[in-house]
Structure formats: C-alpha cells, structure tokens
C-alpha cells in the first residue's frame, strides 16, 4: 500500500469539500450527495491497494467519486450501463471549447446525461488539464476533447432553442 489507512483518512477529510461538490453536481440535493461521498470513501478504502503512487491520489479518488455518482444515478433511474456506440473522435481546437462567461453551465447540467456532466464539471468548474481528465475518466485525451466539444454544441443548441 502506497499510503496507509490513516493517511487515506487524512486526505479524504482534506478533500471532502471538493468531493462533495462534484457529487452534488450530479444529484443537486444534499442527502444524495452525502450518500455518494460516503459510498466513494468506502470504495476507496476497500481498493486502497490499487493506488499505485501517492501522487495519483487526487485523480484516483476523483474517479471513484464520479463513478459512485454515476452508479447512484443508475440505481435510481434503472438505466443500463452502456449506452451503445459513441461517434468517432473529431479533432478539436481548444479555442472551440471556450464559453461565454454568461453561459450558466451549472444550470445547464440538468440537460446532460450523467457521463456528459463529468466532462463539464472537470473542465469548466475545476479547471482540470485535459491530461488529468483523461486519467480520471480513463479515456484518451483526444476523446475527452472531442466529447466535450459535442457536449458544448449540444448545450448551446438546446439553450438557444
């Protein structure tokens, strides 16, 4: 184990606000968010042996929280895990991913599928670099950008309608 249980406890306490906010974005209510965080911490503790390096803790734990949120939502709505084939990546210029300051993406989360929300939260709310997002979501970097671009297009289309 690269970090002890004691160290794990210390780190999750230190990061609890951030984990809570991420969870909250998926469910937009306190009790569900607390449930998700609680579940995620338990899962992290159970799979602590899978953490390869102490430096990876943040991305590793963030992934666990996101997955806990997605699982929570799947249970609630009875959705199947896989939604079928996704379109191919397109090359995206990062400039194409900028948004106007007035576009309320927090509100717009409601319009998105849970997995799409992950992209918005990590990029626009937490300012994570694409490399980190790729780690957290277990996707290649180009795929992250491509999907983010599609999400943004979808939102802009829906919000201007």
């Amino acid at each position, binding site marked *: 184990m690269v970090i002890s249980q*004691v160290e794990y*406890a210390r780190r999750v306490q230190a990061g*609890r606000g951030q984990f*809570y*906010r991420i969870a909250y*974005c998926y469910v937009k209510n306190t009790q569900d968010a607390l449930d998700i965080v609680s579940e995620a911490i338990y899962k992290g*503790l159970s799979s602590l042996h899978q953490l390869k390096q102490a430096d990876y803790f943040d991305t590793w734990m963030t992934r666990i929280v996101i997955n806990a949120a997605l699982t929570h939502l799947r249970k609630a709505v009875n959705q199947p895990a896989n939604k079928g084939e996704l379109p191919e990546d397109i090359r995206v210029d990062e400039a194409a991913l900028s948004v106007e300051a*007035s576009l309320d993406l927090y*509100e717009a989360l409601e319009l998105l599928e849970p997995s799409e929300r992950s992209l918005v939260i990590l990029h626009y709310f937490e300012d994570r670099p694409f490399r980190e997002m790729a780690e957290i979501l277990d996707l290649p970097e180009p795929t992250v950008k491509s999907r983010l671009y599609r999400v943004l297009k979808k939102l802009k289309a829906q919000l201007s309608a």
Partner: protein
Amino acid sequence: MTNIGKRRYEEIPIPDDLEWIVARACRRSSHRRIVKKWLTGFAAVFTLLLICANITPLYASAAEVPILGQMVRVLRIGSGGHATDDVFVTAKATTTGVEISFHTKGGKDSQVPVYSVTRRTAPFRMILRLHGIESMDTESLLTAFSSLDAVADVYLNAYTTAGDQGITVVLNRDCEFSVEENDSPGTLVVDFYDGESDQNATSYFLRSEAMPLGEELADLTQQLSWEGATQVKTAAGEYRVVLGNYRTEEQAREAKAGIEEKFGKSLGLSVAHGGTYEILEN
C-alpha cells in the same frame, strides 16, 4: 477562465454533517468484526479513527456496523423519518447493536416512520420513540437489546397517543450509542460502541411518584411532554416520570416551582439526584 457556472459550483454550500459522514465512512470495513469493549489491541485502527473523527473522542470506536440500504442520517440526538401509516416493527440483534425494520400490513418494506432519539443521564439512557405504528414485535425488540453487552436494561414506554411506541435503553459504563436511519429498505440501526466514561457526575431531576407501566404513567408523561418528560424504571420495578437533567439542585427546584405554577402541586413531583449511570432503587 471564470464563468457563472464555475462560480455557482464553487458556491455550493458544504453541509455541517460532511465531516462526520466522512469520518464514519472511514470507519466502515468490508468485514464485520466483533469487538468486545475490553479489547483495546487494534492500536492502528484506533489511531485512524481518532484522526478520522477529528470531532470528539466519543466517536473513537472500532464497532463495525452492517450498513444496509442507503444511509440517510446518523444521530445521537434528534429526529427523522417519514410520515407513514400502519407500520409493523420488528428487530434483530447485530454484532454491535440492533437493526429495527419496518413493514406494511402486506409485508412489504416500509420507510422509516417518524422517530425521535433522546438521551438522558441518571441513569444514562437512550429513549427511542416511534410514531404511526400499527403493531410492534416487542419481544424481539427487547430481546435484541438485552442480548448486548452495552445494555444494562431495556423497557417499553407508555404513551397516550395511538400509534406511538417507544423504548428506553439504559447503557452500561464506557458505552455510547448512535442511531442510523436508512432508506430502501427503511431501517433504524442502533449501534453501540466504546465511549469515554463521564466522570459519573451527579445530576438533578424531578420525578413523580412510582407507579406501574400503564395509563397513569402515560397520562402524566403526556401532560409534561413539553417539559421534556421521560419514563424511568426503578430497580424495584416501578416507573416514574422524570424531568431534567439539571446541573444543580437549585435549577431543579426552580424548574419544580415553574411546573407547579403551571399545573398545580397535585402532580407530586420531588427533587432527586443521581450519578450518571445510577439506577435508583425505588
């Protein structure tokens, strides 16, 4: 880059409960462990819990709780639950506590009915009160609690309100309790764990005359419910309505005067005192 969405995200309020919930989640493990309260060998675990807890040493415990369904809240004092009708109550002991389940008449799982948890000393006890109960398997409930090391005594309370049920659980020294409410299925899990022993401080209270468990006890409790009345069973086996606890005799006397002004002297309340864990003889 900043935008409205990001600001709103950063402004998501963090509930006070979060620290406690995180500490508790750190305590869960995939295996249930039976930990007797006099075994203190797991030093690493205790260190973890003390650091995790970061709140109060009272939560430093290695008791493992089988957590079912989705945890809604955990409390040591307070209330929760949903408005339900015609709920049936059963209970069974777990390794460290009691799991209370709720069913509808048809036998399906029910949500947790409205409940309240109160704590008092002299003797140190938990009072659990449930509302909207059609029928309760009292035997399974009392048996489950009695089987635990942490429990010194457990008995039914008497209420006038139809559908109200409640029990008083008297705890032994060095024991603490928490109540966890779960949804889907609705359960209340009362968990007992090692706690720091209070210095056995003396506290004061008002108590009624002794009487059997029954209508008179229920009526008096109802009459004094706004004053925070609870029911205590004496060693002799009778019941008294108790108000308090008060820190000093003077506070108790003042409270008594206030109540007699409201209700008259016929209530027959007297000032008494006891140690934190003391069960009075009669």
